[in-house]
């Protein structure tokens, strides 16, 4: 069983064969893959191909599943839950509902107008960019199943806890109100047929690849730089296990950055290989994906400053707690 799983993780999801193939190709071209330059080129070729292959396949499958959970339907489903159950359902549906950050304002207004508590909406907004089915599979391929599962679980816990806390703090009154739609809505959205879902998944895959390819290449380029050019001692002194501020630095640097989770993983992969603690890496990935300057600017149009600050504060604090906890318990994942 272990052998089967290892094969799945390293050869199928990890595509170690691809790494070996690029290695042979480069040696054939007389590039020394043991040298710094050759190793960077090999890492770059292997990682970009691997991510693009997984990305394309995964997004297709995921989009097909997502076509069953349009935001309109998610809104209806969430209306049936109360209390903590609503936050949990919201965090889970956040991972399944197709959602682009540019759509966060209408979604926010729609959820609020439907009478959903503001904390439930925030559980959705936290989990949606953070935890993603595609990212989960990619994380298995890079870090293994244990770390991938840990990432998903703490991401969901953060979304549920963050949303619940926002409700408890009585943030409801800091939401900017928009008038609700009239009852007689002119809305025509029939259930999709199988063929339509197929077309939809294809469109989504193409659209996503077009949207994220630059982030992926950028992320892999930075990863290659970390792998072979930046001295290990530097990385160790800033982000290493012996620097008590490593998690704080990773979080503060990651927050304003706007990148897709798929672009963040290669950077995390390279840092991990250089001995940066697991908690520090989780914090970095979460900070980059969960909070970003563009999304904050957008949210500021629908929530008042007080709520926005509370949201940023809670998520930042959560990411710090996750980082330090995992650095302490990191040995469990080795």
């Amino acid at each position, binding site marked *: 069983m272990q052998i089967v799983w290892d094969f799945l993780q390293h050869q199928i999801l990890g595509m170690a064969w691809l790494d070996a193939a690029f290695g042979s190709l480069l040696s054939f071209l007389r590039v020394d893959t043991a040298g710094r330059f050759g190793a960077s080129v090999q890492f770059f070729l292997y990682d970009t191909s691997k991510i693009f292959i997984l990305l394309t396949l995964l997004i297709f499958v995921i989009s097909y599943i997502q076509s069953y959970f349009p935001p309109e339907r998610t809104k209806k489903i969430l209306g049936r839950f109360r209390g903590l159950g609503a936050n949990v359902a919201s965090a889970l549906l956040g991972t399944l509902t197709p959602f682009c950050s540019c759509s966060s304002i209408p979604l926010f207004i729609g959820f609020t107008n439907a009478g959903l508590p503001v904390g439930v909406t925030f559980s959705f907004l936290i989990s949606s960019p953070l935890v993603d089915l595609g990212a989960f599979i990619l994380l298995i391929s890079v870090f293994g199943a244990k770390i991938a599962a840990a990432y998903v679980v703490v991401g969901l816990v953060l979304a549920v806890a963050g949303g619940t806390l926002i409700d408890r703090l009585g943030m409801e009154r800091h939401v900017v109100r*928009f008038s609700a*739609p009239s009852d007689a809505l002119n809305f025509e959205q029939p259930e999709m047929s199988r063929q339509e879902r197929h077309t939809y998944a294809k*469109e989504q895959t193409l659209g996503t690849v077009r949207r994220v390819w630059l982030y992926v290449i950028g992320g892999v380029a930075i990863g290659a730089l970390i792998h072979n050019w930046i001295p290990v001692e530097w990385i160790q002194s800033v982000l290493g296990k012996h620097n008590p501020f490593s998690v704080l630095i990773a979080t503060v640097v990651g927050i304003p950055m706007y990148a897709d989770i798929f672009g963040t993983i290669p950077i995390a992969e390279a840092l991990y290989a250089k001995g940066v603690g697991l908690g520090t890496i989780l914090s970095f990935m979460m900070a980059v994906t969960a909070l970003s300057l563009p999304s904050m600017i957008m949210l500021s149009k629908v929530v008042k400053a007080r709520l926005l600050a509370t949201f940023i504060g809670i998520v930042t604090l959560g990411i710090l707690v996750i980082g330090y906890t995992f650095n302490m318990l990191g040995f469990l994942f080795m």
Partner: protein
Amino acid sequence: MKLQILGAGCAKCALLEQHAREAVTELGIDATIEKITDFGIIAQMGVIATPALAIDGVVKSTGRVLTADQIKVFISGGRFIPKHS
């Protein structure tokens, strides 16, 4: 006929608008294309996923960048059925 593109500030909305223009030009019909960026109005139309397309006040599609061909089908009054590829 009036085509409305709902959504603000994202590349996807601009793309949907461009496709709508192509569809109108290719069909050679007399139609106005209006961009709706006011979140109050978008909310009032019941749309929670952008970009969205409405034709003569009826929301036809949300959260999706339709192609010009798909928009043409909506304009001619049909429901979009994808070609088998």
